[in-house]
Protein backbone atom coordinates (compact mmCIF):
# COMPACT_ATOMS: atom_id res chain seq x y z
CA UNK A 1 0.00 0.00 0.00
CA UNK A 2 1.22 3.48 -0.83
CA UNK A 3 0.56 4.70 2.69
CA UNK A 4 3.38 6.94 3.82
CA UNK A 5 4.34 10.05 5.73
CA UNK A 6 6.24 13.03 4.39
CA UNK A 7 7.95 14.89 7.24
CA UNK A 8 9.24 18.45 7.43
CA UNK A 9 6.67 20.18 5.23
CA UNK A 10 3.90 22.68 5.83
CA UNK A 11 1.47 24.73 3.74
CA UNK A 12 2.27 28.43 4.07
CA UNK A 13 -0.33 29.79 1.67
CA UNK A 14 -3.07 28.96 -0.83
CA UNK A 15 -4.72 31.07 -3.52
CA UNK A 16 -7.22 30.43 -6.30
CA UNK A 17 -8.19 32.24 -9.46
CA UNK A 18 -11.13 31.74 -11.83
CA UNK A 19 -12.14 33.24 -15.19
CA UNK A 20 -14.84 35.94 -15.10
CA UNK A 21 -17.25 34.25 -17.49
CA UNK A 22 -19.93 32.37 -15.56
CA UNK A 23 -22.43 29.87 -16.92
CA UNK A 24 -25.61 29.00 -15.02
CA UNK A 25 -26.90 25.41 -15.14
CA UNK A 26 -30.41 26.77 -14.50
CA UNK A 27 -30.17 28.02 -18.10
CA UNK A 28 -28.52 24.87 -19.52
CA UNK A 29 -30.73 24.17 -22.50
CA UNK A 30 -29.57 20.62 -23.22
CA UNK A 31 -31.53 19.50 -20.15
CA UNK A 32 -35.32 20.00 -19.93
CA UNK A 33 -36.27 22.51 -17.22
CA UNK A 34 -37.40 19.91 -14.65
CA UNK A 35 -34.19 17.91 -15.19
CA UNK A 36 -32.14 21.06 -14.69
CA UNK A 37 -33.62 21.56 -11.22
CA UNK A 38 -33.03 17.89 -10.36
CA UNK A 39 -29.48 18.13 -11.68
CA UNK A 40 -28.68 21.18 -9.53
CA UNK A 41 -30.25 19.56 -6.47
CA UNK A 42 -28.65 16.13 -6.97
CA UNK A 43 -25.25 16.85 -8.51
CA UNK A 44 -25.05 20.14 -6.63
CA UNK A 45 -23.52 22.26 -9.40
CA UNK A 46 -25.21 25.55 -10.33
CA UNK A 47 -22.51 27.88 -11.67
CA UNK A 48 -19.47 27.15 -13.81
CA UNK A 49 -16.52 29.31 -14.81
CA UNK A 50 -15.34 29.20 -18.41
CA UNK A 51 -11.94 30.38 -19.62
CA UNK A 52 -12.12 32.29 -22.92
CA UNK A 53 -10.08 31.08 -25.89
CA UNK A 54 -6.51 32.17 -25.37
CA UNK A 55 -6.58 31.75 -21.59
CA UNK A 56 -4.87 28.60 -20.36
CA UNK A 57 -4.70 26.74 -17.06
CA UNK A 58 -1.18 28.09 -16.65
CA UNK A 59 -2.49 31.67 -17.00
CA UNK A 60 -4.92 31.07 -14.14
CA UNK A 61 -2.24 29.36 -12.04
CA UNK A 62 0.22 32.16 -12.81
CA UNK A 63 -2.26 34.76 -11.55
CA UNK A 64 -2.93 32.72 -8.39
CA UNK A 65 0.81 32.22 -7.76
CA UNK A 66 1.78 35.83 -8.43
CA UNK A 67 -0.85 37.07 -5.97
CA UNK A 68 0.15 34.49 -3.36
CA UNK A 69 3.89 35.25 -3.60
CA UNK A 70 3.17 38.96 -3.24
CA UNK A 71 0.95 38.40 -0.19
CA UNK A 72 3.49 36.04 1.38
CA UNK A 73 6.28 38.53 0.76
CA UNK A 74 8.54 35.69 -0.38
CA UNK A 75 11.79 36.39 -2.20
CA UNK A 76 11.21 34.55 -5.48
CA UNK A 77 14.92 33.67 -5.64
CA UNK A 78 14.42 31.36 -2.65
CA UNK A 79 11.97 29.06 -4.45
CA UNK A 80 13.66 25.76 -5.23
CA UNK A 81 10.79 23.74 -6.69
CA UNK A 82 7.76 24.30 -8.93
CA UNK A 83 5.32 21.46 -9.64
CA UNK A 84 2.52 22.06 -12.14
CA UNK A 85 -0.35 19.58 -12.17
CA UNK A 86 -2.66 19.81 -15.18
CA UNK A 87 -4.32 17.86 -17.98
CA UNK A 88 -4.63 20.98 -20.12
CA UNK A 89 -1.03 22.13 -20.68
CA UNK A 90 -0.08 25.11 -22.85
CA UNK A 91 1.64 22.84 -25.39
CA UNK A 92 2.15 19.13 -25.93
CA UNK A 93 5.85 19.98 -25.86
CA UNK A 94 7.46 21.56 -23.85
CA UNK A 95 6.43 21.18 -20.22
CA UNK A 96 4.39 24.16 -19.03
CA UNK A 97 6.24 24.39 -15.71
CA UNK A 98 9.27 25.84 -17.54
CA UNK A 99 7.08 28.61 -18.94
CA UNK A 100 5.68 29.29 -15.47
CA UNK A 101 9.18 29.33 -13.91
CA UNK A 102 10.21 32.12 -16.26
CA UNK A 103 6.93 34.04 -16.11
CA UNK A 104 6.90 34.02 -12.29
CA UNK A 105 10.47 35.27 -12.14
CA UNK A 106 11.80 32.18 -10.41
CA UNK A 107 15.57 31.55 -10.52
CA UNK A 108 17.39 29.06 -12.75
CA UNK A 109 18.24 27.14 -9.57
CA UNK A 110 14.54 26.15 -9.31
CA UNK A 111 13.61 22.64 -10.44
CA UNK A 112 10.30 22.47 -12.31
CA UNK A 113 8.18 19.70 -13.79
CA UNK A 114 4.62 18.91 -14.91
CA UNK A 115 2.48 15.95 -13.95
CA UNK A 116 -0.58 14.80 -15.86
CA UNK A 117 -3.23 14.13 -13.22
CA UNK A 118 -6.82 15.27 -12.84
CA UNK A 119 -9.16 14.83 -9.90
CA UNK A 120 -6.51 13.23 -7.64
CA UNK A 121 -3.91 15.82 -8.69
CA UNK A 122 -3.90 18.07 -5.63
CA UNK A 123 -3.26 15.23 -3.20
CA UNK A 124 -0.70 13.61 -5.51
CA UNK A 125 0.92 16.99 -6.10
CA UNK A 126 1.28 17.61 -2.36
CA UNK A 127 2.99 14.23 -2.02
CA UNK A 128 5.38 14.88 -4.94
CA UNK A 129 6.33 18.42 -3.95
CA UNK A 130 6.51 17.47 -0.28
CA UNK A 131 8.67 14.41 -0.88
CA UNK A 132 11.27 16.52 -2.67
CA UNK A 133 11.05 19.51 -0.35
CA UNK A 134 11.63 17.41 2.77
CA UNK A 135 15.22 16.97 1.56
CA UNK A 136 15.79 20.71 1.20
CA UNK A 137 16.16 22.31 4.65
CA UNK A 138 15.04 25.93 4.46
CA UNK A 139 13.50 25.28 1.05
CA UNK A 140 10.36 26.76 -0.44
CA UNK A 141 8.16 25.29 -3.17
CA UNK A 142 5.15 26.13 -5.30
CA UNK A 143 2.49 23.59 -6.20
CA UNK A 144 0.37 24.94 -9.06
CA UNK A 145 -2.76 22.97 -9.83
CA UNK A 146 -5.39 23.83 -12.41
CA UNK A 147 -7.27 22.95 -15.56
CA UNK A 148 -9.46 24.47 -18.22
CA UNK A 149 -11.60 21.34 -18.59
CA UNK A 150 -14.33 23.32 -20.37
CA UNK A 151 -12.03 23.40 -23.41
CA UNK A 152 -12.13 19.59 -23.55
CA UNK A 153 -15.88 18.99 -23.49
CA UNK A 154 -18.68 19.01 -26.03
CA UNK A 155 -21.43 21.51 -25.27
CA UNK A 156 -23.80 18.95 -26.79
CA UNK A 157 -22.90 16.33 -24.18
CA UNK A 158 -25.14 16.51 -21.11
CA UNK A 159 -22.95 13.94 -19.33
CA UNK A 160 -20.01 16.37 -19.12
CA UNK A 161 -21.00 19.93 -20.10
CA UNK A 162 -22.93 20.86 -16.92
CA UNK A 163 -20.19 19.50 -14.65
CA UNK A 164 -16.91 21.09 -15.60
CA UNK A 165 -15.51 24.48 -14.75
CA UNK A 166 -12.12 26.19 -14.91
CA UNK A 167 -9.74 27.34 -12.17
CA UNK A 168 -6.08 27.75 -11.33
CA UNK A 169 -4.57 27.52 -7.86
CA UNK A 170 -1.26 27.99 -6.10
CA UNK A 171 -0.10 26.40 -2.88
CA UNK A 172 3.08 27.57 -1.16
CA UNK A 173 4.99 24.89 0.74
CA UNK A 174 7.87 25.32 3.15
CA UNK A 175 10.38 23.09 4.85
CA UNK A 176 9.74 22.97 8.58
CA UNK A 177 11.21 20.89 11.37
CA UNK A 178 7.89 19.89 12.92
CA UNK A 179 5.38 19.51 10.08
CA UNK A 180 4.29 16.27 8.46
CA UNK A 181 1.61 14.95 6.11
CA UNK A 182 0.22 11.39 5.89
CA UNK A 183 -0.78 10.05 2.47
CA UNK A 184 -2.62 7.06 1.02
CA UNK A 185 -2.35 7.09 -2.80
CA UNK A 186 -3.89 4.51 -5.14
CA UNK A 187 -4.38 3.66 -8.83
CA UNK A 188 -6.55 1.30 -10.89
CA UNK A 189 -5.65 1.42 -14.58
CA UNK A 190 -8.18 -1.27 -15.48
CA UNK A 191 -10.74 1.50 -15.79
CA UNK A 192 -8.46 3.98 -17.59
CA UNK A 193 -11.08 4.66 -20.26
CA UNK A 194 -13.91 5.60 -17.88
CA UNK A 195 -12.78 9.22 -18.34
CA UNK A 196 -10.88 9.73 -21.57
CA UNK A 197 -10.19 11.93 -24.57
CA UNK A 198 -9.60 9.10 -27.05
CA UNK A 199 -7.80 10.88 -29.92
CA UNK A 200 -5.04 13.44 -30.27
CA UNK A 201 -2.38 11.64 -28.25
CA UNK A 202 0.02 9.09 -29.66
CA UNK A 203 -2.10 5.92 -29.19
CA UNK A 204 -4.81 7.29 -31.45
CA UNK A 205 -3.21 10.11 -33.38
CA UNK A 206 -5.27 13.01 -34.65
CA UNK A 207 -6.97 12.08 -37.92
CA UNK A 208 -9.83 13.58 -39.95
CA UNK A 209 -12.33 11.28 -38.21
CA UNK A 210 -11.28 12.63 -34.81
CA UNK A 211 -13.47 15.67 -35.39
CA UNK A 212 -16.57 13.77 -36.51
CA UNK A 213 -19.43 14.16 -34.08
CA UNK A 214 -21.17 10.98 -32.96
CA UNK A 215 -24.52 10.87 -31.14
CA UNK A 216 -24.22 8.16 -28.48
CA UNK A 217 -27.69 8.80 -27.11
CA UNK A 218 -30.10 11.72 -26.94
CA UNK A 219 -28.22 14.65 -25.41
CA UNK A 220 -24.82 12.97 -25.66
CA UNK A 221 -23.04 14.08 -28.81
CA UNK A 222 -19.29 14.61 -29.04
CA UNK A 223 -16.17 13.89 -31.09
CA UNK A 224 -13.05 11.92 -30.19
CA UNK A 225 -11.08 15.03 -29.26
CA UNK A 226 -13.57 15.68 -26.47
CA UNK A 227 -13.91 14.13 -23.06
CA UNK A 228 -16.02 11.05 -22.47
CA UNK A 229 -17.13 10.37 -18.90
CA UNK A 230 -18.91 7.22 -17.73
CA UNK A 231 -20.83 8.76 -14.85
CA UNK A 232 -22.25 5.56 -13.39
CA UNK A 233 -18.88 3.77 -13.33
CA UNK A 234 -17.20 6.74 -11.67
CA UNK A 235 -20.06 6.98 -9.19
CA UNK A 236 -19.67 3.31 -8.24
CA UNK A 237 -15.89 3.67 -8.07
CA UNK A 238 -16.25 6.51 -5.58
CA UNK A 239 -18.74 4.58 -3.44
CA UNK A 240 -16.43 1.54 -3.47
CA UNK A 241 -13.05 3.12 -2.87
CA UNK A 242 -13.05 6.54 -1.22
CA UNK A 243 -14.25 5.83 2.31
CA UNK A 244 -12.06 2.70 2.30
CA UNK A 245 -9.00 4.73 1.24
CA UNK A 246 -9.59 7.31 3.98
CA UNK A 247 -10.28 4.73 6.70
CA UNK A 248 -7.11 2.84 5.71
CA UNK A 249 -5.09 6.05 6.06
CA UNK A 250 -6.57 6.72 9.50
CA UNK A 251 -5.98 3.14 10.67
CA UNK A 252 -2.46 2.74 9.26
CA UNK A 253 -1.31 6.09 10.61
CA UNK A 254 -3.32 5.83 13.84
CA UNK A 255 -5.05 9.14 13.25
CA UNK A 256 -7.66 10.01 15.86
CA UNK A 257 -10.76 10.67 13.74
CA UNK A 258 -12.12 13.03 16.42
CA UNK A 259 -9.27 15.42 15.66
CA UNK A 260 -10.31 15.97 12.04
CA UNK A 261 -11.89 19.39 11.67
CA UNK A 262 -12.82 19.14 7.97
CA UNK A 263 -12.98 16.63 5.15
CA UNK A 264 -12.24 18.47 1.91
CA UNK A 265 -13.35 16.29 -0.99
CA UNK A 266 -12.79 16.64 -4.72
CA UNK A 267 -15.99 18.44 -5.78
CA UNK A 268 -17.38 15.94 -8.25
CA UNK A 269 -21.00 15.33 -7.38
CA UNK A 270 -23.00 16.19 -4.25
CA UNK A 271 -24.94 12.91 -4.13
CA UNK A 272 -21.68 10.96 -4.46
CA UNK A 273 -19.91 12.99 -1.78
CA UNK A 274 -22.85 12.80 0.62
CA UNK A 275 -22.84 9.01 0.16
CA UNK A 276 -19.12 8.93 1.02
CA UNK A 277 -19.70 11.24 4.00
CA UNK A 278 -22.38 8.90 5.37
CA UNK A 279 -20.11 5.88 4.91
CA UNK A 280 -17.45 7.70 6.94
CA UNK A 281 -20.10 8.65 9.56
CA UNK A 282 -18.95 12.28 9.43
CA UNK A 283 -21.20 15.19 10.44
CA UNK A 284 -22.42 17.51 7.65
CA UNK A 285 -20.67 20.54 9.21
CA UNK A 286 -17.30 18.90 8.61
CA UNK A 287 -17.70 18.61 4.85
CA UNK A 288 -17.52 21.95 3.00
CA UNK A 289 -18.84 22.19 -0.57
CA UNK A 290 -17.87 24.73 -3.21
CA UNK A 291 -19.36 22.93 -6.20
CA UNK A 292 -22.63 24.93 -6.27
CA UNK A 293 -20.68 28.09 -7.12
CA UNK A 294 -17.58 26.75 -8.87
CA UNK A 295 -18.45 23.31 -10.30
CA UNK A 296 -15.96 20.53 -10.90
CA UNK A 297 -12.65 22.30 -11.54
CA UNK A 298 -10.72 19.01 -11.87
CA UNK A 299 -7.56 18.98 -9.74
CA UNK A 300 -8.29 22.48 -8.43
CA UNK A 301 -11.47 21.64 -6.48
CA UNK A 302 -9.73 20.95 -3.16
CA UNK A 303 -7.77 24.24 -2.95
CA UNK A 304 -10.79 26.14 -4.39
CA UNK A 305 -12.92 24.70 -1.56
CA UNK A 306 -10.28 25.57 1.05
CA UNK A 307 -10.03 29.15 -0.19
CA UNK A 308 -13.76 29.76 -0.59
CA UNK A 309 -15.19 27.82 2.36
CA UNK A 310 -12.46 27.65 5.01
CA UNK A 311 -10.47 30.82 4.37
CA UNK A 312 -10.82 32.58 7.73
CA UNK A 313 -10.26 29.38 9.70
CA UNK A 314 -7.14 28.56 7.72
CA UNK A 315 -5.83 32.09 8.20
CA UNK A 316 -6.42 32.52 11.90
CA UNK A 317 -6.32 29.08 13.51
CA UNK A 318 -4.85 25.58 13.55
CA UNK A 319 -6.87 23.03 11.60
CA UNK A 320 -6.63 19.30 10.92
CA UNK A 321 -7.79 18.47 7.42
CA UNK A 322 -8.43 15.30 5.51
CA UNK A 323 -8.09 15.97 1.78
CA UNK A 324 -9.43 13.42 -0.71
CA UNK A 325 -9.16 13.50 -4.51
CA UNK A 326 -10.39 10.84 -6.91
CA UNK A 327 -11.26 10.27 -10.57
CA UNK A 328 -9.57 10.10 -13.96
CA UNK A 329 -6.92 7.40 -14.20
CA UNK A 330 -8.47 5.92 -12.21
CA UNK A 331 -6.35 7.58 -9.58
CA UNK A 332 -7.23 8.50 -6.03
CA UNK A 333 -5.69 9.48 -2.75
CA UNK A 334 -6.08 11.13 0.61
CA UNK A 335 -3.85 13.32 2.73
CA UNK A 336 -4.08 14.16 6.42
CA UNK A 337 -2.53 17.52 7.11
CA UNK A 338 -2.34 20.10 9.88
CA UNK A 339 -2.47 23.77 8.88
CA UNK A 340 -1.91 26.89 10.97
CA UNK A 341 -2.26 30.58 10.13
CA UNK A 342 -1.71 30.24 6.39
CA UNK A 343 -1.79 33.14 3.96
CA UNK A 344 -5.00 32.82 1.97
CA UNK A 345 -6.14 35.66 -0.28
CA UNK A 346 -9.77 35.68 -1.40
CA UNK A 347 -10.56 33.85 -4.62
CA UNK A 348 -10.35 36.31 -7.51
CA UNK A 349 -11.27 36.63 -11.19
CA UNK A 350 -9.15 37.33 -14.24
Amino acid sequence: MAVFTVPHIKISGISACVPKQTEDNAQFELLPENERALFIKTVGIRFRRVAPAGTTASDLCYAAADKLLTDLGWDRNEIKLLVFITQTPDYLIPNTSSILQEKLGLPKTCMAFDANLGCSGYVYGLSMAGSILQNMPGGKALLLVGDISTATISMEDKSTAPLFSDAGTATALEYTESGKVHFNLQTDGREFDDIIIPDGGYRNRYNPKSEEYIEYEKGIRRNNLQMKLDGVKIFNFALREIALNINTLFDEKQVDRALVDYYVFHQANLLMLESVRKKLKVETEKVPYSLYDYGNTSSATIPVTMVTKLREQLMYSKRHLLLSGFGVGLSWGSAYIETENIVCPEIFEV
Partner: protein
Amino acid sequence: MLLEEFTKKFAECFNQTDPAAIKPETEFRKLEEWGSMMALIVIATIDADFGKTVTSDDLKNANTVADLFGIVKNK
Protein backbone atom coordinates in the same frame (compact mmCIF):
# COMPACT_ATOMS: atom_id res chain seq x y z
CA MET B 1 -33.74 -8.28 1.88
CA LEU B 2 -37.40 -8.45 0.94
CA LEU B 3 -39.01 -7.38 -2.33
CA GLU B 4 -41.51 -5.26 -0.44
CA GLU B 5 -38.80 -3.33 1.41
CA PHE B 6 -36.74 -2.97 -1.78
CA THR B 7 -39.72 -1.61 -3.71
CA LYS B 8 -40.49 0.89 -0.93
CA LYS B 9 -36.90 2.18 -0.89
CA PHE B 10 -36.85 2.29 -4.70
CA ALA B 11 -40.09 4.30 -4.78
CA GLU B 12 -38.77 6.78 -2.21
CA CYS B 13 -36.03 7.78 -4.65
CA PHE B 14 -38.58 9.55 -6.85
CA ASN B 15 -39.70 13.14 -6.38
CA GLN B 16 -42.54 13.64 -8.81
CA THR B 17 -43.89 10.10 -9.11
CA ASP B 18 -46.43 8.92 -6.52
CA PRO B 19 -44.63 6.23 -4.46
CA ALA B 20 -47.87 4.22 -4.38
CA ALA B 21 -47.71 3.98 -8.16
CA ILE B 22 -44.40 2.12 -8.01
CA LYS B 23 -44.94 -1.58 -7.54
CA PRO B 24 -42.72 -4.66 -8.09
CA GLU B 25 -44.17 -5.06 -11.59
CA THR B 26 -43.57 -1.40 -12.53
CA GLU B 27 -41.38 -0.98 -15.61
CA PHE B 28 -39.33 1.78 -14.04
CA ARG B 29 -37.42 2.88 -17.14
CA LYS B 30 -40.75 3.83 -18.71
CA LEU B 31 -41.58 6.23 -15.86
CA GLU B 32 -41.56 9.84 -17.02
CA GLU B 33 -39.22 10.85 -14.20
CA TRP B 34 -36.65 8.14 -14.97
CA GLY B 35 -33.31 9.41 -16.34
CA SER B 36 -29.59 9.52 -15.63
CA MET B 37 -30.07 11.49 -12.41
CA MET B 38 -32.61 8.99 -11.11
CA ALA B 39 -30.21 6.18 -11.94
CA LEU B 40 -27.56 7.74 -9.68
CA ILE B 41 -30.08 8.29 -6.89
CA VAL B 42 -31.20 4.63 -7.10
CA ILE B 43 -27.57 3.42 -7.13
CA ALA B 44 -26.73 5.53 -4.06
CA THR B 45 -29.84 4.31 -2.23
CA ILE B 46 -29.21 0.63 -2.93
CA ASP B 47 -25.56 1.05 -1.91
CA ALA B 48 -26.53 2.77 1.35
CA ASP B 49 -29.51 0.61 2.33
CA PHE B 50 -28.54 -2.80 0.99
CA GLY B 51 -24.75 -2.57 0.61
CA LYS B 52 -24.89 -3.69 -3.03
CA THR B 53 -23.41 -2.09 -6.16
CA VAL B 54 -25.74 -1.57 -9.11
CA THR B 55 -24.13 -1.06 -12.53
CA SER B 56 -25.41 0.54 -15.74
CA ASP B 57 -25.87 -2.95 -17.18
CA ASP B 58 -27.92 -4.03 -14.16
CA LEU B 59 -30.28 -1.12 -14.77
CA LYS B 60 -30.48 -1.90 -18.49
CA ASN B 61 -31.06 -5.62 -17.87
CA ALA B 62 -33.98 -5.02 -15.53
CA ASN B 63 -37.39 -4.14 -16.88
CA THR B 64 -39.28 -4.09 -13.62
CA VAL B 65 -38.49 -3.23 -10.03
CA ALA B 66 -38.77 -6.94 -9.23
CA ASP B 67 -36.19 -7.72 -11.95
CA LEU B 68 -33.76 -5.25 -10.37
CA PHE B 69 -34.47 -6.74 -6.94
CA GLY B 70 -33.56 -10.18 -8.33
CA ILE B 71 -30.29 -8.87 -9.77
CA VAL B 72 -29.35 -7.07 -6.57
CA LYS B 73 -30.31 -10.03 -4.36
CA ASN B 74 -28.01 -12.36 -6.32
CA LYS B 75 -24.96 -10.12 -5.96
